[in-house]
């Protein structure tokens, strides 16, 4: 079966541009997570969904970051008016649930803001 996929794999944006990052979770996985990984650091939690409900968005760094999962499957992370500090790898993960289930990670999208 297919794993978690993310697109695009690489994105270069000029400062001030809006970007949209897509995540396709494993089929049947209820929970979906977004993380931001800066160079030399571990992934940092951004937000997570259970089906279409966004249950925790405490990690979103500013109101320029927005995530959605309208049909409880594919998710999009949108960053408005990108800044240089947004440059990072954005990881998506999915799991069967949140209670004692492991998360399966996608390959990530490397965003570079110039």
């Amino acid at each position, binding site marked *: 079966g297919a794993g978690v996929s993310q697109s695009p794999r690489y994105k270069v944006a000029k400062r001030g541009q809006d970007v949209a990052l897509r995540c396709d979770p494993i089929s049947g996985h209820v929970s979906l997570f977004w993380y931001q990984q800066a160079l030399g650091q*571990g*992934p*940092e*939690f951004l937000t997570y969904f259970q089906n279409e409900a966004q249950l*925790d968005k405490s990690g979103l760094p500013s109101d320029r970051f927005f995530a959605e999962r309208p049909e409880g499957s594919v998710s999009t992370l949108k960053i408005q008016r990108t800044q240089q500090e947004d440059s990072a790898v954005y990881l998506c993960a999915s799991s069967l649930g949140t*209670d*004692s289930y492991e998360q399966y*990670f996608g*390959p990530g999208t490397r965003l570079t803001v110039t």
Partner: protein
Amino acid sequence: AQSVSQHNHHVILSEAASLELGCNYSYGGTVNLFWYVQYPGQHLQLLLKYFSGDPLVKGIKGFEAEFIKSKFSFNLRKPSVQWSDTAEYFCAAKGANAGKSTFGDGTTLTVKP
């Protein structure tokens, strides 16, 4: 606040040497613990996990980890490393009923052939 700290930023070993990577966590309540590995050019993969029960857990590729509650530790071990174990290793923790995971900053392991 939840936190995970990994003691070593970069570890260099020769093949057949024994490995122990330190991980300490700070979390209130029941905790789930994980070790992930990221091989060069690949995405994060789960090595092993602890949810409950036997505190000594065994994972893939001969790795194991021991949950010591009194020390808030979950150290990763392997008795004899191989060149193919060269990778970055991340320790992570999450509440048993929570969504978000908290990761350490990772340890880069280089195994010399």
